[in-house]
Structure formats: C-alpha cells, structure tokens
C-alpha cells in the first residue's frame, strides 16, 4: 500500500516536473530579476549596477507620455473595438442564416491567424501618401495626413483585435434563451427596450470578457503604435524597447515593466469585479 502510494506520488512529480522547471526558470526567475533590477541603478556604460533605491520608480513621470498614450488609447481602442464588434456578433448569433453562421465565424477568425505584422503593414500603405490621401486628392481634399496619428493607431487596434472582441460576445449571445426575447415582446416591450433590457443585459458578461481581454493585450502593444504611430504616438511597449535595446537603461526599463504588470493586474481585478457583479445582478433578476 505504502509503496503504491509512493509510486503514485513519483509519477505525479515526474508529470509536473518539466512544466514546473519551465515556469520557475522562464517566468518566476525573470520576474524576480526585473524586480531586483527595478530597485537598482544604471551602470555608467549601460546595463545594471546593484543598489537599493526607488529612484527608478520616482523617475516614472519621465515617461509619462507613453503611460498617458497607453492609458488613453488602450481603453479607447477596446471601446471602439466593442462598438464595431457588437453589431457583428449580434448579426452572427441572432440574425444570420443557420448554414452561414459557421462559415462567417471562420471568416472572422482567419485574419487573426495571419501575420499581424503584414496586415498592419498593409494599413501603412492604405493610410500612407499613396493610399487614401492620394484618392482624396482626386476629389480635391489635399494634404490630409492619416498615418502617424492617434486615429491611425486606433484604426490599427480595431483592425487587429476585432476577432478577439467578436468571439466572446458571439458566444454569450448565442447562448441567449430566445424565449426571453419573445416573452419581452409579448409583454409589450418595444424592440429597443427588449434589446436594452434583455439582449444587451444578458450579453454583458461576454462584453466584459472581450473588453478586458483586448484591453490587457493592448497595454503591452508595440507593433501597432510603432508602424501606424510612427514614433509620434508611442505606447509603454515602445518605451520598453527603447530603454532595453537602444538607451540600455535596464533598471528604469524594469521599473516600467513592473508598473505595466501591476497596471494589468489592477485592470484584471476590476474587470473581474464588474463581471461578478453583472452576473450576480443577473441571477437576482432572473429569480
């Protein structure tokens, strides 16, 4: 009996060993490393010098623009994404003919699995001098600059993250009990109040999932602001690349990275709270 228990534990340990090793060496240790770096000092030639100081954190306002841009454009991008995604998810879940549904859904997902780099590059062309501005010049609108503006970054965000927003909303709408819609209409609700009181309300968990997912990923975005913001609209990700690969101020970069992770955690917790409250409220309403 004892031996077989020992054997069972051994097998469990062996099964978990590679994953544990991986998580410790490539997740926990790196995180500890940047936490240590973030309270250190920059060596004169770049890199790290041991110290215990919060000077790096006190210096965070030096990169305030990057934080500001990220904290404004990430929620704005997620919101814009939501406004485009909701009608699409609604159509797919409730209006599209049954046999088209899966095909349309696949068509939403496919762009997501092709290189974001190339697709964003295509937008550089469309928004750049030979794209839309050239077309507009034909009809007399001259000197319109689209690329390297916050608008271009926002467009790139909507483009890149749309599928991620559509899917969770689709799932929550698809599960919706259609009889509730009929009941609402039978009880004399207008289509608008049925939508607001039943459809929108019941799809809120999906909306929250999509919104927080996109928002979290946007906080660490680098490619879209780099390619479509062209150095004028930069995110925290751009500040990190600059500090680690160009100016080699690793301690300051580490402090920014730690701050970014903390912001992500706070966003996740808040999103979780809101979701729980939404689904809690729903349960009470249904009884």
């Amino acid at each position, binding site marked *: 009996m004892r031996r077989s228990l020992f054997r069972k534990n051994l*097998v*469990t340990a*062996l*099964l*978990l060993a*590679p*994953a544990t090793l*991986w*998580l410790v060496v*490539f*997740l926990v240790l*790196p*995180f*500890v*490393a*940047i936490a240590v*770096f973030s309270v250190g000092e920059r060596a004169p030639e770049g890199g*790290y010098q041991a110290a215990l100081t919060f000077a790096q954190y006190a210096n965070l306002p030096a990169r305030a623009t990057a934080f500001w841009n990220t904290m404004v454009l990430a929620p704005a991008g997620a919101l814009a994404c939501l406004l*485009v995604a909701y*009608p*699409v998810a*609604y*159509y797919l879940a409730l*209006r599209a003919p049954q046999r088209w549904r899966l095909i349309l859904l*696949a*068509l939403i*997902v496919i*762009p997501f*699995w*092709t*290189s*974001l*780099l*190339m*697709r964003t*590059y*295509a*937008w550089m*062309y*469309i928004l*750049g001098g*030979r794209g839309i501005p050239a077309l507009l010049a034909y009809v007399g609108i001259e000197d319109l600059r689209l690329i390297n503006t916050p608008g271009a970054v926002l467009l790139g965000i909507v*483009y890149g993250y749309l599928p991620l927003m559509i899917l969770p909303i689709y799932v929550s709408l698809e599960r919706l009990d259609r009889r509730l819609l009929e009941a609402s209409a039978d009880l004399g609700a207008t289509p608008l109040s049925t939508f607001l009181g039943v459809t929108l309300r019941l799809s809120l968990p999906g909306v929250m999932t999509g919104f927080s997912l996109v928002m*979290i*990923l946007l906080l*660490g975005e*680098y*490619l879209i602001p780099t*390619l479509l913001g062209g150095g004028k609209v930069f995110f*925290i990700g751009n500040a*990190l*690349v600059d500090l*680690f690969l160009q100016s080699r101020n*690793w301690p300051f970069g*580490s402090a920014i*990275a730690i701050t*970014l*992770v903390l912001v*992500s955690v706070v966003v*996740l917790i808040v999103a979780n709270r809101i979701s729980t409250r939404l689904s809690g409220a729903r349960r009470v309403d249904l009884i």
Partner: protein
Amino acid sequence: MRAFVVAVFVFLYLPIALVVLFSFNAGHHASEFTGFSVQWYGKALSNPFLVEALKNSLFIATTSALLAALCGTAAALGLQRVGVRTRALFDALLGAAIVVPGVVIGISTLVALVQLFAVVNPFLASLWPTDQPPRLSLGYGSIIAAHGLFSMALVTMIVGTRLSSLDRNLVEASSDLYATPLTTFRSIVLPQIMPAVIAGFLLAFTFSFDDFIIAFFVAGAQTTLPIYVFASIRRGVTPEINAIATIVLCASVLLVLLAQWQLGRRKPSP
C-alpha cells in the same frame, strides 16, 4: 445591419487582399502596382537571408510547439492528481504566463538570461580543459524557451479542459477489468485527449511562428521571419516580403483549419 456586417468583412479582408495583390506586382516596390508577375516568388525563395529567416521560424515554431505539447499535456495529467492548493498555485502561474504582456516576457527573459550567462560562462571556461570553452548565448534556445512558456500554459489549459470533461466511468471500468494504469492511459485517456493535444500544438505553432516582440528581445544574433519582415518594413519593402507573406498566409489558413477540425472532432465513445 447587414450592410454594416458586410462593411466589417471588407475592412477585415482589404489589407490581406492588398498584401496578396502586391505579391504579384511586376514593379520593384510594394507601393505601386505596375503589372502582373510571379517573379517575386522566385526571388523570395532564392534570397538566402529570407529563406534562412523562414527556416529559423519553422524550426523554432516546431520545436517550441512540440515541447509545449509534451510538457503541457504531462502537466495537465499531473494536475488531475494533486491537491487543491498545488493546483491553485499552478493555475495562477499558468494564468500569469498567458496574461503577462509579451513585451514584459521578452525583456524579463533577456535580463534573467544575460545575468545567468554572465555567471555560467566564466564558470564553464574555468572548468573547460581547452582554450575554446562552450559559451551559452541568446539564440534558438532562448526563443524556443520563451515561446514555449506561453504555449505550454496554453496546451495545459486546453488539455485540462478536455480532461475534466472525460468520462471517469470508462477509466474505472478499464481498471476494474484489470487493465494496468498504462494500458488504461493508452487505450482510454490518450485517444480522448489527442484532438486537444494536436489543436494545442497547432495553436502553439502559429503563435510562435507569428510572434515578433518576444523574439525581438531574446533572439540574440538569430533572425526569425517576423524580425526580418519588421527590419525590411524599416528599409522599404519589396514584393518579396509580400510573396513570402502570401505563402505563409495560405499555409497558416490550412493549419488553422486543421486545428479547428481536430478540436471539433469527437471520437465516438466505445
């Protein structure tokens, strides 16, 4: 509403159509269409740097996805056998591996490895008998490990979900009929989780193949396809890049369809 949905689909596919269109451009620039030609496909496949980057990406994606599928599946199986606390700890770490932004994974891995190499390399050199000791450095290994972290967490979650919906009665029936644990695993558990494992592998592969930001930090002197494409966007893109992108696009659509098919496939219960 239908018009809006059609407009969104146009929005989604317009850039992809442009990328494909310009891969057939006769001219030298990816910005001015001057005529139809397939010359850039030939040029792309005979550009040694581009082919090298493509090969590196394929090698890294295959290796990291394989390792992730193996370790992730093992971890998902192991997690079925541990207590609530260990499980919660693992779930938190796996969740972190998925949620922490790629840019942070990239820099923290870079920082940790550079420090580690600074300690290990002199140590190796002092032990090594000849003048040319092996030097650990950033490269294939670090990209594979950093990509594999995310992928492994992904596989563990996908396979874990599948395992939790597994019919326990079959496992019990099998051991009641005197099958050894290994036989039960091979003939009952493995066939049922295989679609999830394969889907996880394919998702891991596409993630690694497409990732730019993590590789950008930990690639050292190596070049992956996204790094090459990023560098050439900076220099000015020739339709070569469009040609490679079109080839990759077709291949990844195929892969994704395969993944969907695997995930959707339900083995009939015996």
